[in-house]
């Protein structure tokens, strides 16, 4: 017979298991952050943010060297990708959630999930065929397109679930006062789902910002600043995850240290984006 004491005991046990699960989630994150900061902090200096990398000899001879071209390149490529992926992804998400009766909807859902599950390197290959081949050169824009394909299915899916979390009755109430469908979605559903939408875009952004594989044969990498700003779009561009990789597999201890510093930057970049978005989507009304 399961008496009250036994059930209370079991309740406590379940609670402890949940706490344990939470800790297991948090601990690796903390270890990574601490480890990265400890190892990379020494390489962070003024020149790191103002100088280009150049050849290994610069670091070996202790001449000024840094990752300014990588930082700018990352920002340019990631935001270009975001600019491509957000309108399309949000549009697909609206289609998935708001027009369930549409003919194309089931197909879109399957295709989107397939795209989401596809290895990122294939998306790089696709962008290579689509843009690098015709252009005849590796470029920032091709990297942005590859990353956009990483973001796209995530944005579509999170948009869909954010919109579906808004009760269907809100839409009917909008229609019942004679609003057209697109107006209902735009003015009542999307504002209510704003936090979810932004969170989804951020998840997609953070995920894409950490991807190195799709950039290997699209934006390719570069040790130098371009001569003209358009070089960040039309010429091979350096990005943080890919630079981190090439610094890490290089044979120079100086470059290893810079790799850790690059990791700090990448983490900081993502954390900054999340904080900014949290501030931007603070609720107008407390509920």
């Amino acid at each position, binding site marked *: 017979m399961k008496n009250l004491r036994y059930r209370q005991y079991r309740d406590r046990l379940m609670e402890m298991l949940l706490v344990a699960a939470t800790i297991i989630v948090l601990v690796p994150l903390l270890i990574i952050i601490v480890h990265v900061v400890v190892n990379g902090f020494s390489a962070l200096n003024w020149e790191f943010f103002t100088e280009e990398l150049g050849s290994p000899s610069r670091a070996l001879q202790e001449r000024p060297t840094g990752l300014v071209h990588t930082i700018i390149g990352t920002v340019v490529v990631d935001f270009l990708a975001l600019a491509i992926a957000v309108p399309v992804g949000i549009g697909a998400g609206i289609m998935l959630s708001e027009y*369930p*009766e549409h003919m194309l909807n089931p197909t879109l859902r399957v295709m989107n999930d397939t795209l989401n599950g596809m290895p990122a390197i294939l998306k790089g290959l696709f962008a290579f065929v689509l843009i690098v081949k015709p252009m005849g050169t590796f470029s920032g824009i091709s990297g942005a397109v590859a990353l956009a394909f990483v973001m796209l299915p995530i944005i579509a899916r999170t948009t869909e679930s954010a919109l579906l979390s*808004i*009760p269907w*009755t*809100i*839409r*009917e*109430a*909008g*229609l*019942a*006062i*004679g*609003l*057209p*469908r697109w*107006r209902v979605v735009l*003015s*009542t559903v999307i*504002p*209510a789902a*704003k936090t979810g939408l932004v969170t989804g875009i951020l998840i997609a952004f953070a995920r894409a910002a950490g991807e190195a594989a799709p950039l290997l044969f699209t934006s390719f990498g570069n040790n130098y600043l371009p001569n003209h700003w358009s070089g960040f779009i039309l010429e091979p561009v350096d990005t943080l995850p890919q630079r981190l990789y090439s610094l890490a597999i290089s044979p120079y201890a100086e470059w290893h240290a810079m790799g850790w510093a690059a990791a700090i930057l990448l983490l900081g970049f993502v954390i900054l984006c999340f904080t900014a978005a949290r501030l931007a989507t603070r609720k*107008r*009304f*407390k*509920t």
Partner: protein
Amino acid sequence: MDYKSIKKFTMKILNSLKTLTTGNKKLPQTASGLALATHPQSGTDAASHIEIGAGSNAHSSVGSAAKPARMETRGLTVMYGKATGVHNISIPIHTRKVTALIGPSGCGKTTFLRALNRMHDLTRIARVTGEVLLDGKNIYDSDINPVLIRRRIGMVFQKPTPFPTMSIFDNVVAGLKLVGIRNRSILNEACEKALRQAALFDEVKDRLGDAAVSLSGGQQQRLSIARALAVEPEVLLMDEPTSSLDPQATNRIEELIHSLKKEVTIVIITHNMQQAARVSDYTAFFYMGKLVEMGKTKSLFTNPRQKKTEEYITGRFG
């Protein structure tokens, strides 16, 4: 054609011209062109009718500007895939009266009600056949825009549905503001009028900028009603509007229905027999997707013709 009929015809045209010009004169102080289109019961009925796309109606309704919409259903059937929601319903919706729909859960009341303003358009598997006539024109005709139909036939739902990100004011005038009416004084006027009609104005007049979701459940429901009234519909469909409210709030909404029927035709679904008896002029009893009987509320409750009706209203089933 004799003299009398010619004279009558000429008078009709003159009258309609008069209506149009007086309507235009009022323009600067009362409403913009858009607002006119949303005021089907004001002097310029023509605008809304033309917008609906019922070309044949436009002419006749100019002459009878003050006459409210007539509504009826003919052989209305709604299918969900292969299952029948409601079958072959033909009833009149009496103008400026309250028609109550009663019947046990799942009998098709809501399905029927939603067919009256084309809410089934959004459900892929739902298929509507038969006719819903508004001023003699079937609202399911291909040249009818459902959005404009829903401006004339409003709806209030079982649960309050305030738009969560909007203030009280924005909620009430959403149906005007979101179709492009920006004039502050028109919106203020419409907001106050609708809130007064819904008996909510005094409670919220000092905090119109607050979140609509900060109101209590009963207030939110009256807000939903005010929002539906702000676009000045000719018909208001109410799907169990008081089922989630306490007795006091229910009472207020019943009083509201009573005063509203001077201007608006109301169709209300209710599970509460007393409520049906209190608020309605006509009652239709649905059972298993079919209409069992419809008649004046008084006679249906005191002297039902069908045995099923009697059993239901005396609480023997349902």
